[in-house]
């Protein structure tokens, strides 16, 4: 007992010196790591901060001052102007309703498919699931020409339905994949009990399974929302008239018309970005979850 205490007292000055040296080097190491991480965060964010700054400047300020300068006298009217003058308000509204309808359609259809594949019993379920999953590997550009001529033939070119149907079809595989992971964890007992009580399949789906899968549904809704809100290739190919253009396409137009007005361009870009940023601030955990679920399981 005594020996033990002695040893500890004799050793402690040396070991604490050793430890403090170790702590110092550890601290320097951590400082370096934070510098790296901070620099990366700066690089990821600075372009957006810069965009925000120039959205509040007029051309005089943009061209005469350093691009790093803060806006001297913030021109909030840039936002009001592009919102009322151009068609930005219309494009914004189109983005909203096209996104909402496509997302609802995708998530509903993906839910029925996932329910039928994981909960119901039939011979071809694995094969059909495979059909959906292979869709993940197909480059959208390879389908663009036939889709264009197909919609041209049935009169859906320059009609929002062509975009909505295409978004739904191409987002189904990923949405089903995210849902599958969650459905696998749902207990079967609840459904079995419901069948015993004489529930129909529809009632089980709508009143038991669908409500239980609400957390994962919200994840898929957000992922789909981000994809559809930002989609460019399909809408650029299928839609030509102004009244159906979405924000992504509208920005392209707008920049063409006001090529030299940086403030107006900046304000338009900010308007297209802000809804996604707000959604991200409110729901970032769900978004992060959806992105990881959607990619790693492949």
């Amino acid at each position, binding site marked *: 007992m005594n020996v033990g205490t002695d040893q500890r007292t004799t050793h402690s000055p040396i070991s604490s010196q050793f430890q403090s040296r170790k702590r110092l080097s550890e601290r320097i190491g951590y400082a370096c790591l934070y510098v790296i991480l901070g620099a990366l965060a700066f690089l990821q964010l600075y372009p957006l901060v810069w965009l925000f700054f120039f959205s509040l400047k007029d051309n005089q300020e943009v061209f005469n001052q350093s691009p790093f300068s803060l806006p001297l006298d913030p021109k909030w009217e840039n936002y009001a102007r592009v919102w009322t003058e151009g068609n930005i308000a219309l494009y914004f509204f189109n983005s909203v309703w096209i996104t909402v309808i496509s997302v609802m359609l995708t998530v509903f259809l993906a839910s029925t498919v996932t329910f039928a594949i994981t909960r119901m019993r039939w011979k071809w379920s694995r094969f059909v699931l495979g059909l959906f999953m292979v869709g993940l*590997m197909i480059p*959208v550009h390879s389908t663009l020409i036939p889709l264009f001529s197909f919609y041209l033939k049935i009169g859906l070119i320059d009609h929002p339905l062509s975009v909505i149907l295409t978004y739904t079809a191409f987002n*189904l595989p990923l949405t089903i994949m995210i849902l599958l992971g969650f459905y696998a964890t749902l207990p079967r007992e609840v459904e079995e009990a419901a069948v015993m009580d004489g529930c129909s399949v529809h009632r089980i789906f709508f009143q038991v399974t669908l409500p239980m899968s609400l957390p994962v549904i919200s994840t898929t809704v957000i992922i789909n929302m981000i994809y559809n809100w930002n989609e460019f290739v399909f809408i650029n190919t299928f839609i030509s008239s102004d009244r159906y253009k979405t924000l*992504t396409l509208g920005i*392209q137009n707008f920049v063409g018309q006001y090529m030299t007005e940086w403030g107006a361009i900046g304000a338009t870009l900010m308007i297209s970005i802000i809804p996604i940023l707000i959604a991200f601030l409110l729901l970032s955990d769900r978004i992060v979850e959806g992105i990881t679920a959607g990619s790693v399981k492949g």
Partner: protein
Amino acid sequence: MEKVMSNKFIIALYILPALLLVLTLIYVPIALTGYYGLMEWDGIGDMSFVGLENYMALLQDKNFWNSASHSFLLALFSTLSLAGYLVIALILASKIKGAHFLRKIYLIPMLLSSVAIAQLWLKIYHPSNGVVNSLLSSIGIQNPPAWLAEPQLVLYAIFVPILWQYAGFYILIYYAALKNIPSSFIEAAKIDGANPLQIAYKIKLPLISGVIKVTIVLAIVGSLKYFDLIYVMTGGGPNGASEVMASYMYQKAFGSYEFGYGSAVGFYLLLICLFVTWLIRKLTVTREDVQY
């Protein structure tokens, strides 16, 4: 139970709408792309069958090989950058304060539309008052290049925002995979006296090798079919210097109305993507993915 849950009519009702959409809008078009490639066609008038002519002509088409080489170069850069993203993720996942917050910051560019990103970076690269050239002239460089107008530079100038856009995505995937490693593995290695580098190299990396494989496939295939930023920022120019396979297809079909030829490009794009996916999976299946 059995009987209720294997009702054929209900299964069809739940599956068919989605299946029909996927078949008519993904699978049939894929087959048609291959078929249209056999035609000479302006997209509106009559098609005339020319056999494998388009496919053969493409093999001789310098512009196509040019664009293909740009796509492969982008694939190379994206794959190399994965190493950097992996290092960042390793740092983030090593119990650092604020990791949760930082990883979200990194992700923000990935959420923005390509058009917005492209327009923003057009301004960043602006020859006289963009951020890049202002920075260069402030440190005394007299005539900084007009990045997007120089045939030798344009491709690399466009790679930067593409890598910027996806950095957070890959960091997030690696971070999530690293966080899934049971801490007992790391503790055991620490007790055996392994230093952080050894733990990263000998324990963490092998444990997430499956995820690394997936990201390599994603990065390469994603690069091969990349389109958005390039189309908006340069349209493949100047003089084809930044053309990639997808933008070449788009330009052939919707720019010069050679739908047959464009379809042949699209079909090659599909074949290349599928082949590369298959090849990487084949090459990297050395052991079973780790389960824990």
